[in-house]
């Protein structure tokens, strides 16, 4: 009890120094938490992927489409319980920076494959019956203030012209990790318009999404799909939805790696600050520690004091930092809008923050504690700090 009291008293002796150190820790732990959350957001698409969905794309690259007649041929494969398709539209809403993903989908089958998109049945019906209608996610709706019945104009970059859509439904995510920043509309609308404008570009879809009953057969069914279309004009590449999403992440892997490295750099910066604080504290109190030694307290007691003080300060900083991470992340997520569809602080991030702070506390105390344990009573009493 006295031991803890002594530690607490020690931390409060230099209020300004302790205060500054804690402030530094708060900033560092907060920054660390936010950076980890940004990395998590990068992987959100892959995390939200279902193991019973496969994605088939053109083997040359995603830019190349697949013919619509592949749909029925894939459906016949045993183990396939559902199939739908999606085509990337790539439209611009007013300005280039207002980015959100838009897909032309089959309104009947697509949402059956994605039960995590929750749509009120009445709105769903309204969407299905309006060929120029669209379904948008909750996050997209709040970012731009879209309501059911609004008209959204998009300037096509892949499909020329200005397209306008009426919001018929807004979907919510079944889980926190569901991407609700997307925009879906009728593939028929796209296809019929292309029939008038550019006949060669009709009856193509971007990717097929395949529902399978048994996730263990994913590899086998993927191979089977690709085998059917080998040596055709549009060869396919089928992979699990997770692998498909991770493919996107790996293309920007360098950025993810950079953010990860930087998130550790901030911990090293604060480690330097914390170690400095502890070194100064121990140096100033060396004669005190010598007195304690002369009174018969062993080196274990003294090192305990130093480690205790260091960890007390770093954990205090960590707790405030973690408490601030949540509101700041929330604010950041609102600012970024649809750029980060899913942005939430995970429990793992909190554990990482606590672990980082504890490590900083321990490492910062190592050198001073070793020195104090080693110093002889005479030498310590003589020192003037």
């Amino acid at each position, binding site marked *: 009890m006295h031991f803890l009291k002594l530690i607490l008293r020690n931390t409060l002796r230099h209020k*300004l*120094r302790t205060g*500054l*150190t804690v*402030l*530094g820790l708060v*900033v*560092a732990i*907060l*920054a660390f938490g936010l*950076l980890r959350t940004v990395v998590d957001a990068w992987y959100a698409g892959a995390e939200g992927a279902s193991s019973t969905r496969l994605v088939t794309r053109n*083997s*040359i*690259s*995603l*830019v*190349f489409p697949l013919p619509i007649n592949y749909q029925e041929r894939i459906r016949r494969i045993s183990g396939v319980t559902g199939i739908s398709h999606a085509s990337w539209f*790539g439209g611009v809403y007013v300005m*280039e920076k207002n980015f959100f993903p838009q897909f032309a989908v089959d309104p009947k089958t697509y949402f059956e494959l994605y039960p995590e998109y929750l749509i009120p049945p009445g709105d769903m019906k309204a969407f299905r019956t309006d060929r120029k209608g669209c379904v948008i996610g909750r996050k997209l709706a709040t970012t731009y203030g879209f309501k059911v019945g609004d008209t959204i104009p998009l*300037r*096509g*970059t*892949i499909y*020329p012209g200005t397209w306008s859509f009426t919001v018929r439904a807004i979907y919510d995510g079944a889980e926190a990790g569901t991407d609700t920043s997307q925009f879906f509309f009728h593939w028929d609308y796209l296809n019929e318009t292309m029939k008038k404008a550019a006949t*060669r570009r009709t009856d193509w879809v971007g990717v097929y999404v395949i529902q399978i009953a048994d996730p263990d057969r994913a590899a086998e069914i993927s191979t089977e799909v690709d085998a059917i279309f080998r*040596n055709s*004009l549009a*060869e396919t*590449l089928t992979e699990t939805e997770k692998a498909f999403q991770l*493919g996107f992440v*790996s*293309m*920007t*892997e*360098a*950025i993810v790696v*950079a*953010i990860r490295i*930087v998130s550790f*750099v*901030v911990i*090293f*910066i*604060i480690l*330097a*600050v914390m*170690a*400095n*604080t502890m*070194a*100064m504290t121990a*140096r100033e109190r060396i004669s005190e520690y010598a007195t304690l030694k002369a009174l018969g307290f062993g080196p274990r007691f003294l090192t305990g004091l130093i480690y205790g003080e260091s960890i007390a300060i770093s954990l205090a900083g960590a707790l405030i930092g973690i408490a601030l991470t949540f509101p700041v992340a929330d604010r950041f997520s609102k600012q970024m809008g649809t750029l980060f569809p899913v942005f939430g602080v995970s429990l793992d991030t909190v554990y990482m923050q606590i672990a980082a702070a504890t490590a900083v506390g321990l490492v910062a105390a190592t*050198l001073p504690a070793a020195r104090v344990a080693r110093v002889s009573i005479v030498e310590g009493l003589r020192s003037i*700090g």
Partner: protein
Amino acid sequence: MSIPLSYTLRNLAARKLTTVLTAGGMALVVFVFATVLMLEEGLRKTLVETGSPDNVVITRRSAGTEVQSQVDREQAAIVENQPEVAYGMTGTRLASKETIVLISLPKRGSDKASNVLIRGVGQKGIELRPQVHIAEGRMFRPGSTEIIAGKSVAERYTGAGVGETLRFGQREWTVVGVMDAGKTGFDSEIWGDVDQLMQAFRRPAYSSVILKLNDPAMFPELKARLENDPRLTVEAKQESVFYAEQSQLLANFIRYLGMILSIIFSVGAIIGAMITMYASVANRTTEIGTLRALGFRRNNILSAFLVEALMLGAAGGITGLILASFMQLLTISTMNWQSFSELAFSFTLNAEIIFKSFGFALIMGFAGGFLPAAKASRLAIVDALRAA
């Protein structure tokens, strides 16, 4: 008379651990700051130098990138025969009708796939880009299934080295050469014969047309004529502007993320400097009193402590820059969101970045040292001398 610099230097040397830790913290912040600037500069340099101001890129209106663009044969022919287009040595127009396709290729070693841009170029394609040289092997023969790969593509992708083959569009393509484009965007591309590639990918139309102008000053006139021609649905851009726009999204992302991080991190380092300087003032209260009693003025004391803090900043700045300069050895490759293809670029250090980073380090030192120095200068002589 001011307090000699050696006094300040000795103070820093007296507590080595503290000095090293404080300067080390700042060095890390400077390292992050400089690295981000270097990355942005590298990206900018790569893409800006890809385009030349005398060349014009013609794409379909509002396509934004060459990959999304389509220019059909009829329109390409009209564009190519505009009077502003320069003539080459052989009396033909200096224009290249090109097709751009993205293919997904596995990387050497990891087998992870990424998008690579394949450019089908016309006869004049290489002449229009003076920065491109064949570094190894030879140029592809027109009308054959031969291709040449950019230097960074040849290094990083399976099957893209000289003598190797790639399979796409139902054909085998032999890599016969490696081009060195002087670290521009073309290093991340594969080139082949435009007609062969169009057939392989079953494309009826070109993606873009590249023109060389007789005189860059003619560009506004050409642009106005092409964009108002009712037969055409194209957009004309100077090649340098076109490539600068391609990098905007990624460059902005790097810049904003980097600046926000540097500022947040610098708070940590400034606090470190502040703690050190406050301790430095507290330990030397008697000394300050003595100096004042000897006749040094308040502003002498202020500047002595500020100089000490600036020295800490400078030490951090130099260390950080030395660390950052090693980053020049690295090449980073990531997907450019706008063109959806992979782009390799390196960290580039220049005088401006050195200047900015060092300035940033000094600002951190100043910010950390100002309050403690002010405190020291305000001490009353009697109180200071009395302090134990």
